């Protein structure tokens, strides 16, 4: 039986990061951790903040307007993911978990004036050649209507869980690590972009906000939040998308700050394939596919 936890305020990310980090150290010392994922759904209903949406839209390259991008709904559901993953009965600490793919569907345009009921829960764990994949399944409802659904896959290296499914699942993200798409458009990411994005998104992970934070995790400098790049790609294509769309993303290589990257997209049928690459080199940072949304799944 799924436990349903209804929050009455947004979870605070910073305390969760700290407590999760402490718990991770304790677990490493004792070698003990919970053996399964908690069967829990975290739910939070709230109205959206117009000013924050505008700041988000501007920072990610969207037009400032009443309809919110699908990635913005993810940003609002993100604290719920953190709440789940940092819970004492969750098996893995947040530090070191890597966001590898994302898939989200916007079933209909959502206005900034609409109150959203957001939820997040674990999907079944999946195998990965380097560890275990945790799927965080999020949904956004307006009243009882499902308007958005997203699945974020996080890799926990060197770990396993009982009952893991094979990595490839029907309806999952099937993106190659690279695609043959010309990338000529240049995006210049300033040194403080991670801090700016942290302010509008709440993703304060120090790996994104300071060079020191980046170094602590083995990078020469800070790296941009993958969700910024995700949103920037959506922003570039949004004027050409249908009202309801599905966007799949594979994060292949972090982007250091500051840096310049190249973006390109190609339309094949009704499906866009997009890529973000290094400015000077040929390595790929992100691959995305966007197409019209499937119909809303039947709600039991």
């Amino acid at each position, binding site marked *: 039986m799924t436990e349903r936890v209804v929050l009455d305020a947004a979870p605070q990310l910073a305390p969760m990061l700290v407590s999760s980090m402490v718990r991770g150290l304790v677990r490493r010392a004792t070698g003990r951790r919970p053996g399964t994922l908690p069967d829990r759904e975290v739910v939070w209903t709230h109205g959206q903040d117009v000013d924050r949406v505008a700041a988000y839209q501007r920072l990610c390259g969207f037009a400032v307007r009443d309809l919110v991008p699908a990635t913005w709904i993810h940003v609002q559901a993100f604290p719920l993911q953190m709440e789940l993953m940092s819970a004492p009965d969750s098996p893995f600490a947040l530090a070191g978990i890597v966001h590898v793919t994302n898939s989200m569907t916007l079933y209909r345009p959502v206005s900034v004036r609409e109150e959203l009921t957001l939820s997040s829960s674990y999907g079944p764990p999946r195998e990965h050649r380097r560890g275990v994949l945790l799927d965080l399944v999020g949904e956004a409802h307006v009243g009882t209507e499902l308007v958005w659904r997203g699945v974020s896959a996080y890799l926990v290296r060197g770990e396993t869980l009982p009952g893991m499914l094979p990595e490839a699942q029907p309806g999952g993200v099937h993106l190659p690590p690279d695609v043959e798409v010309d990338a000529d*458009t240049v995006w210049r990411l300033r040194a403080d972009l991670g801090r700016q994005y942290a302010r509008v998104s709440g993703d304060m992970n120090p790996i994104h906000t300071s060079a020191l934070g980046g170094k602590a995790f083995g990078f020469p400098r800070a790296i941009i939040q993958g969700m910024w790049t995700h949103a920037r790609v959506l922003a570039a294509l949004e004027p050409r998308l249908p009202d309801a769309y599905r966007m799949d993303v594979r994060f292949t290589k972090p982007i250091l700050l500051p840096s310049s990257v190249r973006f390109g997209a190609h339309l094949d049928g009704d499906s866009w394939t997009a890529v973000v690459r290094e400015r000077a080199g040929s390595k790929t940072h992100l691959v995305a596919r966007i197409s019209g949304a499937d119909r809303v799944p039947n709600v039991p």
Partner: protein
Amino acid sequence: MTDHTAVVVGGNRIPFARAHGAYSRASNVDMLTAALDGLAARFGLAGRRVGEVVGGAVFKHSRDFNLTREAVLGSSLDPHTPACDLQQACATGLEATIYVSNKIRLGQMVDGIAGGADSVSDSPMAISDGLRRALLAANAAKTVPARLAALASIRPGHLVPDPPGITEPRTGLSMGEHQALTTMRWGITRGEQDELALASHQNLARAWSEGFFDDLVTPYLGVTKDQGVRGDTTIEKLAALKAVFGRGEGATMTAGNSTGFFDGAAVTYLADADYAAEHHLPALARVVDAEVAAVDYTIGGEDLLLAPTYAIPRLLARNGLTWQDFDYYEIHEAFAATVLATLDALADETYCRERLGLPEALGEIDRGALNVNGSSLAAGHPFAATGGRIVSTLAKLLHQRGTVDGRPARGIVSICAAGGQGAVAILEAC
């Protein structure tokens, strides 16, 4: 309603000067005023009310929200002359000509002036978004603490100013970088580009020495002739220049075959043909028709500066003409490679069929009829002033030629512009 014909009566511009040089103390308003005064002197317009003056600038100060009207008020024209600002990047001057000629053809006015000015030397410098938003918030704050809180959000990084960019906001590429992609795609060689640049300099120098510009240019601030023209340049000198755009084998674009930064202003006087005749004004050429187009350069993979290749076939079809039916071709030389890629594209079967949806390629043109009195590579390219320079030049060329095989001499103007846009127009000799 009777039919009206819009004709070019004449033009006037100030010599185009290298940026940060002779005109560095002049503003867009100053230069546009000087161009208007020269035109007024030439056609006896001092104290006269003209139908409308239409112009603009690409690098525009926010205080110049009424740039053209301010220039009118500072000129010898009757202050009852209305004005309108219009801007379409480098096509500003030509779009202004189209606007004025359309009003004349509709009978809404009997005469009008079209043009533009641009100063790189006196360009606006914006404060950063962070500082601007903080200052706006402080200005809007109703209490002292709220004002202080707004000002406290200013960070040292906010104090770095934003110079005006010539990069496309949606692609992050400068115009030169965009053209370098096009140059590569179309396989335009360094040699072809340098030859076109050489011809531009030689043609413009010849036109100056023949006195062609004597009634098209008024000296300004001690400058009597376009500063960019180098009649003595050679193919060897051009070949020795280092590439500034493109990489590796694609690095073929130099300061010699790309336009640099210039200051200047140009205007064209247009009138109803009957009005011109009644008032003993010259009529150089008739504005026949015009077309604008745009390309999908952001993610559609199209060439930023080849929008005219879309406009030209549509304009030709509407007027029952072929690409070969012109005695003069004025194709704006943003870069030598832009002109060459435009000509190549229109002669390319695949491009014409698949991109433009035409039954076949438009074909080649007589290169001897191209930019016969030089163009932007030699004259310089103060963005919004270029349209006025080209329209006035072509109108005079057509008038001098008169008729060809018993029909009026015919010319076409093509100008590419930032934002993946292009404007083209057909003129016929009067």
